[in-house]
């Protein structure tokens, strides 16, 4: 755990580390050095645990086992089962647009700012390998067709944020905020009902310019969309949000959508669902009665 650092500020403290391929931080309304060290360590352990458990880049976890079962049913633990139940409900709520089997599309869609648009042939070859409805999920048994893959990347980070909040709550009564690469949650406001302030990146000037500050009293915040990840061909911009039903990027999707909701994972799903609505993203968000910021 060499990469954990902590810092005491005026009236709060920060703990930082790297996990899930992004910078993570914990802000606690306390200047207690021991407390911030303990909470940061707990957060780091939880982030790493979830990363190792659900990452598809390792070869010794449950996701690897399922993805390499070649059509043989696999029995999963309770936590994984809850993830699949949740993914299943998101699949149904989004009418098939949120699909944890759609990760294979990344093989042909590489959003590196180039003009490498895959051919229709490549797209059509991949299409049969996508579709949660082809997966037999009968808790606790999952049976994934041989040539398909499951990728919990669309849920994992947000889940880790909420899960970390739950653990830290057991160790402190202070207000705190968990931020894993921009996916954020805080369980209660600061003393005197004060919010945490979060800077919102301008997607076209990441890290340089912010489009505003958001006051987060409690709940979760998540952003979908990334200005650096796109393809450009003949003046047409392809967003990195892929529609599993067409295997193509969603046309006219906003550049980024930020949502505040009850939990981080809920905010994450709402922002993702909104992106998947393309040009109707704003109407969708309006109908949800949530706080949101949409960068067209």
């Amino acid at each position, binding site marked *: 755990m060499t990469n954990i650092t902590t810092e005491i500020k005026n009236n709060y403290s920060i703990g930082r580390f790297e996990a899930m391929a992004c910078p993570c931080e914990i802000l606690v309304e306390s200047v207690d050095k021991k407390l911030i060290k303990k909470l940061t360590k707990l957060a780091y352990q939880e982030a790493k645990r979830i990363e190792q458990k659900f990452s598809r880049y390792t070869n010794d976890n449950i996701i690897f086992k399922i993805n390499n079962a070649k059509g043989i049913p696999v029995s999963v633990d309770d936590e994984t089962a*809850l993830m699949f*139940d949740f993914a299943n409900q998101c699949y149904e709520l*989004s009418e098939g647009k949120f699909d944890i089997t759609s990760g294979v599309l990344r093989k042909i869609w590489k959003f590196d700012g180039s003009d490498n648009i895959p051919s229709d042939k490549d797209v059509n070859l991949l299409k049969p390998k996508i579709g949660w409805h082809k997966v037999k999920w009968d808790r606790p048994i999952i049976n994934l067709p041989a040539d398909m893959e499951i990728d919990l990347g669309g849920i994992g980070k947000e889940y880790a944020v*909420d*899960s970390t909040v739950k653990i830290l709550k057991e160790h402190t009564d202070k207000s705190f905020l968990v931020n894993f690469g921009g996916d954020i949650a805080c369980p209660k406001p600061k003393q005197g009902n004060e919010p945490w302030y979060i800077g919102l990146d301008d997607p076209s000037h990441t890290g340089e310019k912010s489009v505003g500050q958001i006051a987060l009293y409690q709940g979760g915040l998540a952003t979908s969309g990334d200005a650096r990840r796109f393809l450009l061909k003949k003046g047409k911009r392809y967003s990195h949000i892929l529609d599993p039903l067409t295997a193509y990027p969603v046309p006219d999707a906003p550049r980024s959508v930020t949502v505040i909701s*009850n939990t981080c*994972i*809920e905010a994450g799903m709402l922002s993702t669902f909104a992106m998947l609505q393309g040009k109707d993203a704003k109407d969708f968000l309006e109908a*949800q009665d*949530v706080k949101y910021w949409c960068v067209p």
Partner: protein
Amino acid sequence: MAVVLAVADVGVIKNMNNIKSNLSIATCTLLGGAAQQANAIENSWDLDSSLLYYSEDDDRVSVTKAMAFLTGDLSSDDTVNVNLVLDTMSGATPTGAVRSKNSSVSFSSASGAGSSTIDGGSVDRVNFSDTRLGIALNWTHSQDRLTSISYGGSLSVEKDYQSYGASINYNLDSEDRLTTYTAGFAGSFDEIYRKTDGTPEPLSVVDDNNMFSNGERYSYDFILGVSKVLNRKTIGQLNYTISYSDGYHTDPYKVISEASLVEDTDTGEFAWAELNRYYEARPDSRLRHSIYTSMAHQYGDTGETVHASYRFYTDDWGISSNTFDLTHRTPLSAKSYIEPHFRYYQQSAADFFVHSFVNDDVSTPIILPEFASADYRLDESVGITTGIEYGTKLSGGNFRARIEFINWQYEEAEYDETKALVLQVSYQKLFD
């Protein structure tokens, strides 16, 4: 029957509204926090309250209906609906008797009115007032990803009518969840009586006041249905219902006149003269079949929705009917819509429907049939409804207002037209 498949609303906004609350429940299950979970379940209730005013012209029936429909999730697998209805009914309703000028027969009042009421010297219609309280409960439990079972119970109480019902429905989704099959059974028990207790002896002379005990009726409904998502914007539905009821089907207030058509020597016009009056009699069983098909289609960039349905009904009393219903929803903005409604209803008369027992030769007693009714609702008729609904989203809920005009034309009945106005305002409160 409490079998309503989700067809009526494929409107974009409505679908979107469900997402956040459903997602909250899903999230809570995932995160497994008991406190958060209880919170979210509390938040997932929605209350639809509505006030309906129905008024027939010519001072006939008017009904004020207050309705509350509460729906909520007990868990991610259990949904509960509670439906409450309070009706206040009053006005005058045709009894079935002819509009006679020189009637000398008195008639005791229908439902609710304490003393006998003679309307302007005539007895062809009678004033009434009553209150009905209806309660229905429905619980739907998801067995697994594809199957759910609903259990329902209902109770309805009036001063002269009580009804108890129970139902069970089984829903099965296809593996791709695009098709839903439904099979259901409902049973009910009704008790029917006059406000003053008992029921009149069928086809007895009203003046004789021969009373029997209260009427009882058992009804059984079986339904088979399929609803299919035809494409991302179209849903179709087909239902078949067979119902059998056994017991007392007669209306204890309806009567039939023995009458002859006489010429008014002053005006030269013909008018009915009532000679005698009998209570009606209906068969003690009824077998009904109905086929219902509907299609909802959304089109256009703004989400216009057209909903069309057709119902064919036939029973062993000789009544068959056709109902065409059409609504078209046009969004006015992201938050509001307008929806015109048109309905055409046509039915044939029951085999035993009569205008009256016509007797041109007063000296000869008439021969009474086994069954007879002069109730205009059993006559050949055409009903046309035209209306419009406006709906808008307010902060924390949805508001709807509806106005409808209904016109019924009856072929033979003494009162051969009913015109009615329906006004309804509703507010759906979403607790989120």
